[in-house]
């Protein structure tokens, strides 16, 4: 790099070609990295609880004790997305739980669209950091809900709050948005 006095044009040409090839590979790698950011983001969210994404698969009960000294309020919010002609609500607005204690809550859904429809509920927990401590043993959000016209269903949610939940959190909100995914499933 100090001195290219003695380089012939062939040498320069060769170096330029090697350099270019390396850079082209860098570009391709970075293009791939752009897409790799999608799973990386999910991992990042899992670790930090960014955006309140909860696990999409069932967990098993792992808490080693029930912390009777704390009482956490869990609020439930249910919403239907645009175009989803469903009735969707929890059986209760909120529930008090001790960390480590298993709770069971039902959500009511009814297809009012007059035709067969498939619903998918998307959960979100706030504060986001609590998402990591909100453990779902069973949740209707793990599956899609196919309902015939006018059919209704009570859907289960079984969860516990991890006793490791940071001390400063004593209220958390679980929101479900129900999307009508019939179109994307049928096509």
């Amino acid at each position, binding site marked *: 790099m100090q001195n290219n006095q003695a380089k012939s044009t062939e040498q320069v040409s060769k170096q330029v070609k090697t350099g270019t090839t390396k850079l082209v590979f860098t570009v391709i790698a970075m293009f791939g990295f752009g897409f790799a950011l999608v799973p990386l983001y999910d991992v990042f969210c899992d670790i930090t609880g960014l955006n309140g994404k909860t696990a999409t698969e069932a967990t098993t009960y792992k808490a080693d004790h029930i912390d009777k000294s704390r009482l956490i309020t869990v609020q439930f919010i249910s919403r239907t997305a*645009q175009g989803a002609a469903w009735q969707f609500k929890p059986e*209760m607005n909120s529930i008090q739980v001790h960390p480590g204690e298993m709770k069971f809550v039902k959500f009511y859904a009814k297809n009012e669209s007059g035709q067969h429809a498939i619903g998918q509920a998307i959960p979100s927990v706030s504060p986001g950091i609590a998402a990591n401590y909100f453990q779902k043993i069973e949740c209707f959000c793990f599956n899609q809900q196919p309902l015939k016209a006018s059919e209704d269903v009570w859907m289960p949610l079984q969860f516990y709050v991890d006793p490791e939940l940071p001390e400063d959190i004593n209220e958390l909100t679980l929101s479900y948005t129900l999307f009508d995914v019939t179109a994307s499933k049928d096509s």
Partner: protein
Amino acid sequence: MPFGEMYLSLFSVFSMLNQQRRCLVKRRNLGWLLLGGLLSLSAWASPALADSQLNLTQGVTDVSQNVYELHMMVMWICTVIGIIVFGAMFWSMIFHRKSKGAKAASFHESTKVEVLWTAIPIVILVGMAWPATTTLIEMEDNSQSDITIQVTGSQWKWHYKYFDQDIEFYSVLSTPKSQFDNREGDTGEKWANPNYLLEVDKPLVIPVNRKVRFLITSDDVIHAWWVPAFAVKQDANPGFINEAWTKVNEPGIYRGQCAELCGKDHGYMPIVVDVRSEQDYELWINEQKIAKAEAAKAEAQSLNASMSMDELMSLGETIYTGHCAACHQPTGLGLPPAFPALKGSPMATTGPISDHINIVFNGRAGTGMQGYGKQLSLKEIAAVVTYERNAWDNNTGDMVQASDVNAAAGDSSAAPASQQDSAPAPTPAAPTEVEAPTASLDDLSMDELMAMGEEVYVKSCLACHQANGAGMPPAFPALKGSPIALGPVDAHIDMVVKGKPGTAMMGFAAQLTPQQMAAVITYERNAWGNDTGDVVQATAVVNK
């Protein structure tokens, strides 16, 4: 605004600038002019002018006050650094110029100086980061709130829902279009409206001195809920919730706007928060409940009432102008392809009326078309559908009544307000309850047990074990053909009465009467082809 007024305002700012400069500057020099400009900036930022429109608001919460102080601190630090750096620059520009015979020095590096001006900024930055961190920690502490309000943004309005109060409403810009759409001439009305573009039909009402938590989300694109006086700005992300909180110190009306580009009418979705004393807030809550009951009554009446074509068309036009014209345009031509034309469209002419009602009522997934079922009454939807099918030469002659809307949209027979009856109204923190328990221990016949058992099963067991008894394994095992339901009766009773620790199966002793438990056990042992023939009576459950 007339041009005369404009020049007046130009002149006033100019003279303001001049006053600032006159005392400082005598020479016509770029440097002094700029320095003067900088100083006039700092004068603008002085406390006397803090509440003017030239600076950040101090707001009405402790947090907004802290944010304001932080802002002033950084601004002063920047001003001081600016004066030193620009001062040195202008000094050398004035004195080290060639026309004055300055000879260039030859120095071009000094490790000492360079280390110094790397280290000093770091110290200053730490000094700034400290208070910023403490304020931020305070802002992010959403715990221990008194009231929770769910804020939902949609194109282009806000929806507020009071948690535990059963109060919800939309909040829409109330400035008339004639004031802001001046493309066909300006009447100048807006100048008489002090709250131009910052007013809504129904403001959010919150009490003073109470910690109010906002759960913010969106129905379509990203919006941002911003009230400068509270120093609250949070994005509303579709499918996710964000939290923010405020505790307002002074009653009053505070205004803000959507702060994230959300499409065409992003500039027309203001936020108004009416902060009231605690008593006035309670009064307001009661008023809302009464109003809600009356609205439900009116809705029920509208089902039987029939409106004439003229009534429908005139109401329809009003609704259309208020809710639909922004996208589908007053001409019905829309703004294709995002906002399709209604004029001559199959949906509004030849297509079935029920489909038309359905789209208006429920919206259409993946498009800008939101559902108006929650925003408009049945009567209003009927009117607007009628209007769309007959305006702009669509002339179908179709008339739609509230009862048609009710029939087509929800397929249940009740109005939306009473549709909620088909599901139990949410009750705070109450476990599933089944009717008033009867203490009867009388023996029942198999048929009676099976009938009662099915009823209990549907209410208490079905969510997990499913209507067909197949459950949702592994968390919720099947009952159909299961060892529990086919094995010893005692074990089955035990399971229902006490539950099974470590699983979702709870004990139902506190929730069901012995007779109900007996019935449901009988049911489970005989339904879905289990057919054990076992008949379990209430006494058996009690004796257990």
